[in-house]
């Protein structure tokens, strides 16, 4: 494999990794906006709900971890420069 092709491929991998984390982040944000607003509404009436509310708010956050895991796999599972090392 020519070194330039490998470079392009590695670049595309990096874009894919970025998209994986980035889109997961956007998705979690969309999910969280509703939950966050509702939690603030409930906490305004019942301050004791804050702990539970924060937990619920963080649930969509787990999706980002999936995205991040995919990104890490993409970035570190294969490197075109491995042969050079």
């Amino acid at each position, binding site marked *: 494999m020519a070194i330039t092709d490998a470079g392009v491929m590695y670049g595309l991998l990096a874009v894919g990794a970025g998209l994986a984390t980035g889109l997961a982040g956007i998705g979690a944000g969309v999910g969280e*906006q*509703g*939950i*966050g*607003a*509702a*939690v*603030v*509404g*409930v906490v*305004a*009436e*019942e301050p004791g*709900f804050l702990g539970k509310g924060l937990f619920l708010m963080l649930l969509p956050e787990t999706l980002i971890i999936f995205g991040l895991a995919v990104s890490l796999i993409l970035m570190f599972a294969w490197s075109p420069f491995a042969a050079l090392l």
Partner: protein
Amino acid sequence: MPVLRLPKFGKPVKYAYITGRVRAMKTKLIPNEMYARMLNMDIPEIARYLEETQYKEEIDALAKDYSGAELIEHATFANLAKTYRKLLEVSIDEPQFLILEYLRRWDVWNIKTILRGKFYGASDSEIMKYIVPAGELDREFLEGLAKKDSINDVIAAFEGTDFAEALSKYDGKSLASVENALDKLYYFRMERAVGGTLSVGGGLLLKYVRREIDIKNLITLFRMNKAGIEASIVQENLIPGGKLGEELSRMAGQPYADFVRGLEGYPFWSAISDVATADLDGVSRIEARLKAYLIRYAWSLSNYHPLSILPVLGYIVTKETEVANIRKIVRGKEAGLPNELIEEQMVVA
């Protein structure tokens, strides 16, 4: 009146805050099982119990001016108005628009109260006792109306507003036609303001309101058919716009037994099937059941549409019922009515 044009597709996320908030507020309402215990308390005990609930602030503030049943009556209405105003203050955009449209019923209530007060020659402080400034008309304006000398002065104050036409029906002898016209106006205005917007939230509001109109008409039918009133007069008193409008209008003037039999098979029938017998003396028990059905309907609809105006509506009607129940208990106690009679009138969903 300016009509707010809403986007065609309402975003449910707009409702997240207000629905979260009303669901938390719902948990602070008086639980149903408390009513049975309140029936066994005397009035000062009820006042003390209410001091432990959300009514504390109002009871404390009004305790120096009033006592007994009067204190509770004032405090409950003051709390009702405060709660509804709060709903308007903490919401924005589409939810706020829809809540205000629904709460305009209190404008109608207040105008009716002032007209009735003036009709029977009550003093302005007496009238203000029953005012709930939860709609668009604020307390100062209503106080000004209550201070006016005659009904015609009150009517003149609404010159140029939507209310003018309905109020012009006043003939100097009775308020029935004006009150009827005001009720119809409220629903007509809501249909006009919300119906044209095509928003999802507005559609849900209208869906509930149509059922509410049906239930109101049904109560009218129960009362008037029981009294054997002529069909044309009954039909005049029915509010147009309900989902079952035509079917209910056909039932007007039917003999009571036929009318009750004809109701079988409707969705609300299960709520009243055991009390709606042909030989029932009063319709108050049926009324209470139908109102309870309406509350359950609002909450069950809101299970299908959790992020919509419906939980807010559910809360508004539940709160109104709670205040009505407390007042029924207190007034009944004051008049020395037996507990069973008070219990019959109470709406427990």
